[in-house]
């Protein structure tokens, strides 16, 4: 809520609270429409869920097509060419239709109930992660003060579904895949959280929205990946770990089709199998979007005049007959959300590229990479990011090389944006009191 767009001379206007009055959907439903508190919240959450569910469904379809097409090109093949006219762009939909029609097989040896239930867990955890993702400074289902912490917690639930699916299949291949996945996940979560902390130190907030707002202005040096050398290294480290978190090659030991047949989903057939895939592609997008928000400037284009022009759209409010609705502001929101989705999609494409370029590691190499390389590296990065501003303070007299990103504007951006979640205070209220 603090990081106003930087440097007044870049003409990024600090949004006046009266002009752009942002309310939550629940607030609008209770005040404007007259629903009582509980129903307003329920309807708002249902609308959020519906909107994000569409994203959750459409994005994997796009990425599956991208992966098929690009992997084919990398291997000097054509890939899908027919479905949907040119370029086979409807291939993922055709795959889905085929999979719905396929016979649904549950092995006799499997634990029927848990076998059927386990595939819901990854999808639930990834869709719940969408709850906390901001797509621009107003579009977020729940603007929590500790969004980053919560989103990592929710994402880590995914492994439960994989282990459950692997164990209850009743097949030895599945068991091996599930157990490998458990080992891999519990190890890779440590460097994931450690590297996510590095930009948090630079931005001073756990709210993904605030971290995004903080990076307004020119790409260099305002994006957190350029904030200090440790942030740049942390980005590379985070991205490596994120690939492992989505169990993508070269870390896809849970699947490992060359040694474990298909790993944890060996016994899954038809549409049930595709749900694991759906959750995998959606979680690729989520970790890429988190990377974008933490390191790559969130929804900002990185070109200050362009961002200023987009933010300036907020003032364009032609009368369309709806009270309190600004066409320009809506347009700006759509464009900013498009920018952040584009950046995240590019990162997903890099994940695809990595998958089809690098050979799979062996399971002991995967574990050694995490525990003996990535974890110590992440620890060093965290300590380095802690000491870096103190070192600068001792030598340059200020904590950043290029001056503070916090604007010199008198009023912080807060208040008018999104109502903060009162159920989740910063958790350091007493500590703050004790300082004085």
């Amino acid at each position: 809520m603090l990081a106003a767009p930087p440097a007044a001379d870049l003409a990024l206007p600090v949004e006046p609270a009266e002009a752009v009055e942002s309310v939550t959907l629940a607030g609008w439903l209770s005040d404007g429409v007259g629903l009582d508190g509980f129903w307003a919240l329920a309807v708002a959450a249902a609308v959020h869920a519906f909107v994000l569910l569409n994203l959750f469904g459409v994005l994997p379809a796009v990425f599956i097509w991208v992966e098929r097409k690009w992997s084919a090109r990398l291997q000097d093949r054509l890939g899908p060419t027919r479905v949907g006219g040119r370029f086979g762009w409807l291939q993922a939909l055709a795959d889905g239709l085929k999979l719905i029609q396929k016979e649904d097989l549950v092995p006799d040896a499997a634990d029927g109930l848990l076998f059927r239930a386990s595939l819901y867990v990854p999808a639930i955890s990834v869709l719940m992660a969408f709850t906390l993702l901001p797509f621009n400074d107003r579009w977020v289902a729940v603007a929590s003060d500790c969004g980053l912490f919560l989103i990592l917690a929710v994402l880590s639930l995914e492994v439960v579904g994989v282990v459950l699916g692997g164990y209850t299949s009743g097949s030895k291949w599945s068991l091996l895949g599930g157990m490998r996945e458990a080992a891999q996940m519990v190890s890779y979560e440590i460097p994931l959280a450690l590297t996510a902390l590095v930009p948090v130190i630079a931005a001073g907030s756990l709210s993904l929205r605030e971290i995004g707002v903080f990076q307004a202005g020119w790409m260099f040096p305002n994006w957190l990946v350029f904030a200090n050398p440790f942030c740049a290294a942390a980005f590379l480290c985070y991205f490596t770990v994120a690939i492992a978190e989505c169990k993508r090659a070269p870390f896809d030991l849970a699947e490992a089709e060359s040694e474990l047949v298909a790993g944890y989903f060996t016994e899954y057939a038809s549409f049930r199998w595709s749900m694991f895939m759906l959750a995998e592609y959606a979680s690729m997008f989520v970790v890429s979007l988190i990377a974008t928000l933490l390191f790559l400037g969130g929804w900002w284009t990185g070109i200050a005049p362009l961002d200023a022009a987009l933010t300036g759209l907020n003032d364009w409010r032609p009368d369309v007959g709806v009270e309190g609705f600004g066409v320009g502001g809506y347009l700006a929101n759509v464009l900013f959300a498009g920018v952040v989705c584009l950046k995240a999609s590019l990162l997903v494409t890099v994940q695809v590229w990595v998958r089809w370029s690098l050979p799979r590691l062996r399971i002991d190499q995967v574990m050694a990479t995490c525990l003996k390389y990535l974890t110590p590296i992440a620890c060093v990065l965290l300590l380095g990011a802690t000491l870096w501003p103190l070192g600068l303070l001792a030598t340059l007299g200020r904590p950043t090389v290029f001056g503070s990103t916090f604007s010199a504007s008198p009023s912080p951006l807060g208040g008018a944006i999104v109502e903060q979640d009162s159920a989740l205070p910063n958790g350091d209220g007493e500590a703050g009191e004790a300082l004085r």
Partner: protein
Amino acid sequence: MDLAGHLLIFAVAAIVALAAPLTLGRLIRPKNRTPDKSAIYDCGEEAIGSSYLKFDLRFYVVALLFIVFDVELAFLFPWAAVYGSAIALTDPTLSEGVRLGLTERLGGHTPGTLPIEATLTAGDATRLAIGGALDLAVFFGVLLVGFAYVWKRGDLDWVKTVAGQARQDALR
């Protein structure tokens, strides 16, 4: 309430979204089960034994290490936010308004409720930041000593016996 309600409704939405195509598929997909189709895949052979067996959980110590690290990390998250705010406040060029806003965020106050006298000065913030860095050094240092011990003991090796054998061979 807001968050819990959202997470609940999103979970329900995910279940509905997955159950709907499965239910639709139930109407149109074939259902011709045979004993061969219902058998688990064991490389095309008759499956030998059950897969519900005693299993070597190689990563038991790794899992213990994970718990220690994760608890530590849970404490580091609020620390990082406070430390980052304190670091931002050490910049002497900040304006009064930004300084007040950062102080409010640092202490977890509602924006606009803190009196201007309560604002942290750059000097205060520097002391706070140095204290924070020392806290981290102690807190994290203890953990790293434990990590080094586990590493030295060979618990991080996936195949412990082979690695231990290789080490003994090297000593010989």
